[in-house]
């Protein structure tokens, strides 16, 4: 299998009044073609920032410090004022125009809150016209509208509603419109940043189903960012667990749920409620994540970890591949480290 997306050594920093916060710290990730990679972690762990850095849209005052974002482009793109050659390209090396040409066309991003992600003053149809014409300049408005109508229909929305304004749609329908806009140009990679957090459980299930169908239909690869492990259990092929900007564990979905390696992952899974055991007291993780502006040396999870050792306070543990296939950043699994 070829890698569609390969992130190497990526770091993103936010410059704040108090100092510099490293929101994404030295991250390596791979996403294979036609796979779904789930990215999970608690609020503020840098998962959204990571998603936005792939689009190179980290908001001010954030900045991508270093790293490579290698993307496998399946066709050369030619646009007004430039072009991008096909093959493996580093998104970090592209200029603004080249990046603009890739956004929306090869990379699609779906935001968390469908209520605020559409311009309230612009009709749904014009949203479709805009994105199609931004990438295919010679497409006429009628044709763009027709394509929009077809997409709405696949998503279960009456095509004639294309003349409506966003406020005339419910939350679930707006998220479908967002997805429709996302897939309008048949992108290769769909980044969905908590696409169902703002929706109720029933709509959430429908949207996840639709995403799965679309993924098959269009040969999409997906990066699904969420704090809901249950969502990932249904949809993801692989899961990466993030904590304080670092990847703690990457594993196949089944092995992550059945045999979590990293102490943080183990704690997270203990905190997931189970409908079959309604009387079970949920576990929680004592303490809070360390301040990113004033990070602690070594492993960031150490103060909350029950297995903490001396070595944990020295150097951050590297992400290492185990014999069982998981990758874990924890000294518990490093050979030759004294376990005390």
């Amino acid at each position, binding site marked *: 299998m070829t890698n569609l997306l390969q992130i190497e050594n990526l770091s993103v920093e936010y410059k704040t009044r108090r100092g510099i916060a490293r929101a994404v710290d030295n991250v390596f990730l791979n996403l294979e073609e036609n796979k779904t990679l789930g990215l999970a972690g608690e609020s503020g762990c840098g998962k959204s920032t990571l998603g936005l850095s792939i689009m190179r*849209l980290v908001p001010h005052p954030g900045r991508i410090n270093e790293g490579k974002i290698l993307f496998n482009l399946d066709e050369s793109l030619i646009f007004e004022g430039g072009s991008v050659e096909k093959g493996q390209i580093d998104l970090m090396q592209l200029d*603004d125009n080249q990046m*603009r040409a890739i956004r*929306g066309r090869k990379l699609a991003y779906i935001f968390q809150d469908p209520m605020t992600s559409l311009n309230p*003053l612009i009709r749904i149809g014009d949203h479709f016209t*805009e*994105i199609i014409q931004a990438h295919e300049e010679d497409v006429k408005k009628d044709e763009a509208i027709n394509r929009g109508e077809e997409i709405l229909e696949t998503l279960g929305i009456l095509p004639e509603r294309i003349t409506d304004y966003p406020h005339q749609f419910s939350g679930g329908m707006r998220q479908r419109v*967002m997805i429709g806009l996302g897939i309008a140009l048949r992108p290769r990679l769909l980044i969905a940043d908590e696409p169902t957090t703002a929706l109720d459980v029933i709509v959430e299930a429908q949207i996840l189903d639709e995403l799965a169908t679309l993924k098959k239909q269009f040969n999409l690869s997906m990066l699904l960012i969420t704090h809901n492990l249950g969502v990932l259990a249904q949809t993801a092929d692989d899961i990466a667990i993030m904590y304080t900007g670092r990847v703690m564990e990457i594993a196949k979905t089944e092995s992550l749920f059945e045999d979590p390696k990293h102490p943080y992952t183990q704690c997270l899974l203990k905190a997931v409620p189970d409908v079959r055991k309604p009387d079970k007291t949920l576990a929680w993780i004592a303490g809070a994540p360390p301040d990113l502006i004033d990070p602690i040396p070594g492993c960031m999870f150490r103060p909350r970890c029950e297995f903490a050792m001396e070595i944990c306070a020295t150097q951050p543990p590297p992400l290492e591949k185990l014999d069982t296939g998981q990758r874990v950043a924890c000294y518990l699994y490093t050979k030759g480290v004294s376990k005390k």
Partner: protein
Amino acid sequence: MSLKSYVTSRVLLTIPMVFLLLTLVFVIIRVMPGDPALLHFERHVSPEVLAEFRRRLGLDLPIWQQYINYIAGLFRGDFGISMQDYSPIIQHLHARFPATLELSIYSGLFAVVFGVILGVISARKYDTTTDHSIRLLAIVTYAIPVFFLGMIFQIIFSVWLRILPSGLRFDPHYTPPPTITGLYTIDSLLTGNIWAFGISIRYLLLPSVTLGIILLGIFIRLTRTNMLETQQSDFVMSAKARGLSSFSITYRYSLKNAFLPILTMIGIQVAILLAGAVLTETTFSWPGLGTYLVDRIYHRDYTAIQGTVVFFAIMVAVVTLAVDILYAYFDPRIRL
């Protein structure tokens, strides 16, 4: 709710508002202690003159009847008669209004156009020297009293540089263009008189820039704030993620969405514009409603003051209504 029923309900709501306004003006001006007739004559006059004066102005009637006459008169377009010479006030308003309208249009345009342009620049260059300079300009211009700025301009451009006239509306040595709309710049263009157009612009320049600068700051700050806000909004972020160009995001997204609060502000500013016009007209001897009002105040001409204030009030009400309707036209959510 359709646009039509929205407009109807707005118009219906405006009627009690205007009614309340007319009553308020009447109460403030007439029911105040002091006899307007006595106050009008600064020196002693014979009781016969005073009685005749009261009779002609209807001041001898009971106050409630004066009020009914006043409201009924307004419905007929009768703004009362002046204490000065018993001439109908509507005549004066009609003669003076075009001058004020012309001044207001040009200052309003100046403020909105430059305010929005500078606001957009300021937002696009967020947190740079350009941004800080523009913000400083906005605060300073907002804080300067209009008559003071007017005098400074007169000293610089009329006294030192001698390139622009310090007052009036047209060169007194020549005849102004024939009245079609009453706006000299438009009338001179309609009659093809470029020369007269040039003169009117020369005379318009200082007063309208003065008044425009006073209003400029509000529009700069409002545009900047709203542009920054929409730029950070989710829909702008997702537009970027869809690969729209930054040009189309700035103008189709940020500016279009930021324009709605600007439109509201234009409505509110019309009242301030008219108030500013009074001061600007006085500074530049501009023959509009403002100078008329000030002149009538000096002469304690209560009926004329009341008529002019009512006229201003109705203007503000009409513009507010127009802005509400425009707002609905631009913002589909309002029509809900």
